[in-house]
C-alpha cells in the first residue's frame, strides 16, 4: 500500500481526486488555501478561483447540478459568506462537499490560529431548517478517509456535506496510507436532460408551492428523513473505555489529540460525525457519573450534548487557539470537584 | 360589402389579466374590456399586435384565408 507524508489539506485533495472530484471553486483563505493551490493544474479537475466565497459555492451548486462532483474549501469568514447558499443547496438537493478549516473568530479574529468555533454555524448557519451531515476528523489519515465519506454521504443524501477541519490538523504533516475506499456514484441526471425546475422556494415535484404550510412541512420531513437515514451509514466515533474512571471526556478535532493524554484517568469519547449526533453516545454516557466536554470555543457542542443526554455536562472551554496540556489538566481537576454526581435519565 | 374578417382572436380568459394593453394596440378597435372581461369582435385584420404585446400569452390569432370563387358558367 502506498504511504505518503502529507499535509492535512493535501490529504483532502488526494482523497477528493480518488472520489471523483470534477470541479473545485474557491477563494483564497488561510488556512485552507493549499487546497486551491494544489488542485490548480490537475488535468481532470476544473478549478475556478472566484471573486468570493458566495460565488464559489454557487459555482459549485451549478457544476454539481450539471453532473460533476464538486467541492469548495474555506475557513470561518468565508464559511459565513456561504451560509445562505448552503440552505439553497439543501433545498435544491445538490450534492457537494464543503471543507471548513476553522480558525479563531468571530470576524477576522486571530489569523490564523486554529479554533473550533464553527460547530453551530456548520449545523445551523443558514436560515430555516435543514439537517446537514457534518464530519470532524482529527488526523491527516482521517482527513483522507473521511473526505471519501463526505463525498459518498453527499451523493447518497443529495445534500451538501460539511467536513470540518482546523488550522492544526490541516497544516499537520503525517504519514497516510493511500487506501481506496468504495465510491458512490451520482444518482441524479445532469442538467440538460429534462425539464426540471430547481428552486429555493418550497416546492412539490419541482413546482413552487409558496403558500401551503402542509407542503412545506412535508418537504422538510422528506429532507430530514433523507439526511438522517444516510447518516446512519456513517456513524463514526471513537470510544476509549476506562472501567475505573467515573468521568467521560468528550472532545473532537485537534483538541482531541491532546485529550488522549488523559486516557489513564478518564474515559474518552470522540464524535467524528458531529451532526446528526451519534446516538451511541447516549449508551456510553450512561456508564459514567460525570461528562466533561472540551472544545476550542465558548461551549458550542456542549449544549448539543446536554440536549442529547438530558443531563448536566461540564465544559472546558479553550478558545483562542491555545492547547496546553497543563492548563487542560488543571481545569479538568477543578471542574470534576464541582460537578454534581449524576446518573443519566433514559 | 362589409370587410371580411381576416383573423380569429382566441382569448384564454384564465391567463388574461385585463391589463388593457391589447385593446390600445389594436388598430381596428377589435378588442375591448367589457364588464371586467376581454372581448373581441369581428374586425380583426390579423396584424398580430395583440398576440405580440400580450405579456401573459393569453391571446392567439389565427389567420383566416378567404378563397376567391368565380361563379360557374
Amino acid at each position, binding site marked *: 500500500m502506498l504511504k505518503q507524508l502529507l499535509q492535512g489539506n493535501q490529504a483532502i485533495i488526494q482523497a477528493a481526486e480518488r472520489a471523483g472530484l470534477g*470541479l473545485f471553486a474557491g477563494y483564497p483563505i488561510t488556512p485552507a488555501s493549499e487546497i486551491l493551490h494544489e488542485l490548480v493544474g490537475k488535468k481532470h479537475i476544473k478549478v475556478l478561483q472566484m471573486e468570493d466565497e458566495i460565488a464559489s459555492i454557487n459555482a459549485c*451548486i451549478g457544476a*454539481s447540478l450539471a453532473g460533476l462532483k464538486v467541492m469548495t474549501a474555506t475557513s470561518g469568514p468565508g464559511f459565513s459568506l456561504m451560509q445562505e447558499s448552503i440552505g439553497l443547496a439543501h433545498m435544491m438537493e445538490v450534492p457537494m462537499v464543503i471543507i471548513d478549516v476553522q480558525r479563531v473568530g468571530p470576524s477576522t479574529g486571530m489569523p490564523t490560529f486554529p479554533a473550533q468555533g464553527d460547530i453551530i454555524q456548520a449545523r445551523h448557519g443558514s436560515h430555516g431548517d435543514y439537517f446537514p451531515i457534518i464530519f470532524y476528523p482529527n488526523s491527516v489519515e482521517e482527513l483522507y478517509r473521511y473526505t471519501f465519506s463526505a463525498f459518498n454521504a453527499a451523493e447518497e443524501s443529495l445534500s451538501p456535506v460539511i467536513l470540518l477541519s482546523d488550522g492544526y490538523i490541516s497544516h499537520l504533516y503525517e504519514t497516510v496510507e493511500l487506501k481506496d475506499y468504495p465510491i458512490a456514484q451520482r444518482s441524479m441526471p445532469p*442538467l440538460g436532460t429534462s425539464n426540471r425546475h430547481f428552486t429555493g422556494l418550497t416546492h412539490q415535484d419541482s413546482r413552487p408551492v409558496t403558500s401551503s404550510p402542509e407542503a412545506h412541512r412535508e418537504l422538510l420531513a422528506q429532507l430530514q428523513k433523507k439526511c438522517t437515514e444516510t447518516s446512519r451509514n456513517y456513524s463514526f466515533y471513537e470510544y476509549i473505555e476506562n472501567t475505573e474512571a467515573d468521568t467521560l471526556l468528550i472532545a473532537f478535532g485537534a483538541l482531541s489529540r491532546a485529550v488522549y493524554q488523559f486516557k489513564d484517568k478518564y474515559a474518552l469519547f470522540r464524535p467524528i460525525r458531529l451532526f446528526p449526533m451519534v446516538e451511541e453516545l447516549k449508551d456510553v454516557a450512561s456508564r459514567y457519573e460525570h461528562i466533561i466536554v472540551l472544545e476550542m470555543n465558548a461551549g458550542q457542542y456542549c449544549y448539543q450534548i446536554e440536549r442529547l443526554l438530558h443531563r448536566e455536562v461540564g465544559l472546558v472551554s479553550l478558545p483562542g487557539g491555545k492547547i496546553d496540556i497543563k492548563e487542560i489538566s488543571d481545569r479538568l481537576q477543578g471542574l470534576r470537584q464541582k460537578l454534581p454526581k449524576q446518573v443519566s435519565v433514559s | 360589402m362589409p370587410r371580411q374578417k381576416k383573423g380569429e382572436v382566441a382569448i384564454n380568459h*384564465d391567463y388574461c*389579466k385585463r391589463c*388593457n*394593453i391589447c385593446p390600445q394596440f389594436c388598430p381596428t378597435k377589435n378588442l375591448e374590456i367589457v364588464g371586467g372581461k376581454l372581448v373581441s369582435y369581428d374586425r380583426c385584420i390579423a396584424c398580430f399586435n395583440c398576440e405580440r404585446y400580450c405579456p401573459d400569452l393569453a391571446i392567439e390569432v389565427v389567420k383566416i384565408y378567404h378563397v376567391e370563387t368565380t361563379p360557374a358558367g
Partner: protein
Amino acid sequence: MEDTVRFKRFLKEGNLPTPWCPGCGNGQVLKSLAQAFEELNLDKHQVVVVSGIGCAGRSAGFFDLDSVHTAHGRAIPLAEGIKTANENLKVVVSSGDGDLLGIGGNHLLHATRRNTPLTIVCYSNEIYGMTGGQASPTTRLNTKTLTTPEGNRDVPFNVQAIIKAHNCFYARSTTFHLPHLKKCIVEALRHPGLSFVDVITQCIVNNGRRIGFKDAFEMLMYYKNNYKINDNAEFLKDNEIGITRCAGV
C-alpha cells in the same frame, strides 16, 4: 399552429398564468426569450435557464427545460459553474436589475472579466418591484420611490460601460420594440463569449403609476417615442437602443 406561437414549446403552459401584475413587461421578455430559442431552433436539452430572486427571478420556472432558481444575486456564478462543467450547454441567465446589478453586481463584474460564455438577459424595470417599489440600481435620477421620497440622488448603474469595459457583448432594447428585442437576444445567444441584453421593461404597479403613467400601454408608448434604434454604435446614447459593436468578434 401559426408560426407565431411555435415558441410556446419552450414554455411550461401548465404553470401559467405567470405571477406577475397586470401589464408587467416580464411576460413580454419571457416570450422574447422563448422566441429567440425558437428562431435558433435550439434543442430543449441544449439550454439551461438560470434566474435569481425578484419578480424576474420567477421567469426560470416557466421554461420547459432544466432551469435553476437561485439565491438572490447568485444566478451568474451558478450559471458559470454549469457552463464550466458542461460547455455544450447554452446557459441563459434571466433575472432583474436589482438581482444582477445590485446584490449580484460583483459577480457580474468578474464574469465579464472571465468572459464566461453566458447570455444574460436583464429585466431592467428601474425598481424593486416584488418588495413594493424601492429604488433599484437602475432607478433614474430624481425619481421618487418608496426609499427615495425626495427623488433618487444616486446615478443609475451604467451597465453598458461595465460590460463594454471588458469587451463583452452588450445590447439594449425595450418591451415596445419586441422584434428588435428578439433580434438582440438571438445575437446575444450567437455571441461566443459573455453577452448581456439590457431590456427596459415596465413595472406599472410599483413604479409607473407612482411616476405619472396611467397604464402599461402608456409606458410602452413612452419607450416607443423615447428610444431610437441604432444597431451599429460603439456605445449607445441614453435614448438609443441597439446592438453595440464588440471589438475583435
